[in-house]
């Protein structure tokens, strides 16, 4: 009982850190499902299960990147809510993934809400600096208003979901029709496609598109692990890097001759 209060508080605080984007790249990883799975698992006395559930959830959001600061779906919120509930209720990792999906969507919407509310803060800030004329005002504003917005949009939701979630989920899980559970699992399998589609559109270099298909079918036909694929990928990158260099040098030498 008390332990659940602690877990809910820690999860709420971690989501708050992540949602306020503390430490920029750090905020991305502090609520990554693998890390949350380990932390929450340790607190609840079952790190092994936590880690496995975390890994399943992270699969969904692995390619997800945020071009222009847009958050399509928040894998952090999904992890922070679904992992403790799944450990507490003994939910199957696949079902935990399904449980996380709606929270991932809500998380994406919360980022939009946050950036909309902060518009009002910006105008308030401009009035404030016109009055004070002191650059410190901007820092004082930043330390209060956006922090408060981030806190209110993250901590209460996570705390309540983690605290009351297990009993709610435990009660309704048996009533949920099989096809809904299965449908969420199917969605969990397809959803990574969104992350990869975004990543491809950001990286997009038309001349290297064949490499995308090479990577895809290398795994389809030969079942190489991601670790193995990254070795091949690194070889290609190094080859291109060195080759570009020498071809440029070659051109220069030709010009001087």
């Amino acid at each position, binding site marked *: 009982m008390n332990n659940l209060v602690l877990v809910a508080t820690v999860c709420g605080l971690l989501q708050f850190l992540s949602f306020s984007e503390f430490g920029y790249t750090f905020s991305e990883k502090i609520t990554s499902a693998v890390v949350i799975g380990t932390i929450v698992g340790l607190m609840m006395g079952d790190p092994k299960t936590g880690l496995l559930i975390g890994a399943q959830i992270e699969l969904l959001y692995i390619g997800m990147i945020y*071009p*222009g600061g847009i958050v399509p779906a928040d894998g952090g919120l999904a992890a922070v809510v679904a992992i403790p509930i799944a450990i507490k209720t003994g939910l199957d990792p696949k079902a935990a993934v399904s449980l996380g999906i709606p929270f991932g969507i809500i998380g994406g919407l919360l980022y939009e809400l946050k*950036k909309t509310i902060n518009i009002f803060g910006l105008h308030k800030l401009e009035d404030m600096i016109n009055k004070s004329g002191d650059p410190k005002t901007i820092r004082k504003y930043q330390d209060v208003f956006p922090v408060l917005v981030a806190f209110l949009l993250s901590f209460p939701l996570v705390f309540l979901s983690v605290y009351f979630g297990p009993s709610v989920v435990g009660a309704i899980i048996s009533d949920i029709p099989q096809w809904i559970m299965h449908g969420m699992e199917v969605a969990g399998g397809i959803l990574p496609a969104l992350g990869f589609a975004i990543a491809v559109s950001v*990286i997009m270099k038309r001349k290297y598109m064949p490499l995308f298909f090479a990577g895809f079918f290398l795994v389809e036909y030969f079942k190489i692990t991601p670790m193995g694929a990254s070795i091949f990928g690194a070889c290609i990158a190094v080859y291109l890097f060195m080759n*570009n260099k020498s071809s440029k040098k070659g051109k220069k030498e030709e010009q001087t001759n």
Partner: protein
Amino acid sequence: MENTETKLTKKDLRKTFFRYYTFCELGSNYERMQAVPFAASISYCLEKLYKTKKDRLDAMHRQLQFFNTEGTFGSMIMGATVSMEEQKANGMPIPSETITGLKTGLMGPVAGIGDTLIWGTFKTIIGSLAVTLALQGNYLSSLIEMLFPIVTYVIAYNLFFSGYNLGTKSIKDIMKGGLLNQLIDASSAMGLFMMGALSSSYVTFKLITKIKMPHSDPIVLQKVLDDIVPGLLPLLTIFAIYFYLKKKQNYIAVVLAVLVLSLIGAYFGIL
């Protein structure tokens, strides 16, 4: 003659960088994106450089203009902007528009570099290594995840100081220069290769429906598809989403569509 030059100390620069990288999205909003975090970070410098209320107000409003980029490589812009403000405060005739122009001119290309190198390639590779280990029950996976913030912090710190020391002209030279382009080119290639490999590993989309035949075994649709091209459905899905996003950047719509289609497919026993 009295020496009135105000120089920024290493401590001012460190404070600026630290606030920038720690809070570079804190207070960002849909009207001017990262303007607030940018202005809050550079405020340490403005406070020291400008003494009169008018100068300070001008500088603050200038730094509160629209700004949006990728944070790690954006540190370079922060460094260069600090150095321009320092020169301006010490009497160089730099108009406000030049500083704003530098920021807005660089933010697009810099975001392109950062999103490709840091997020598209580095983050995804780190994540997939961590997940691979985690699926085997290995706790080192969390440490691997933490390589992402640690390495990017070191990169950002160095880019901030090279932005400050090299000044704006050199940044443009670096951006146009061969080495960085080669690096981007090579890592785009690796990135796309990895995206292909990872989407094959991690996107699962299979039909489970069977067509009953009166006089022979039922036809398993997925097997028919696999015989033509394995992984056809995941591949088609990725490119369907890709082309949709090119037209309309409505991500939530994609997530919801995937969810609804999966539920429908599950209800009718197709997926």
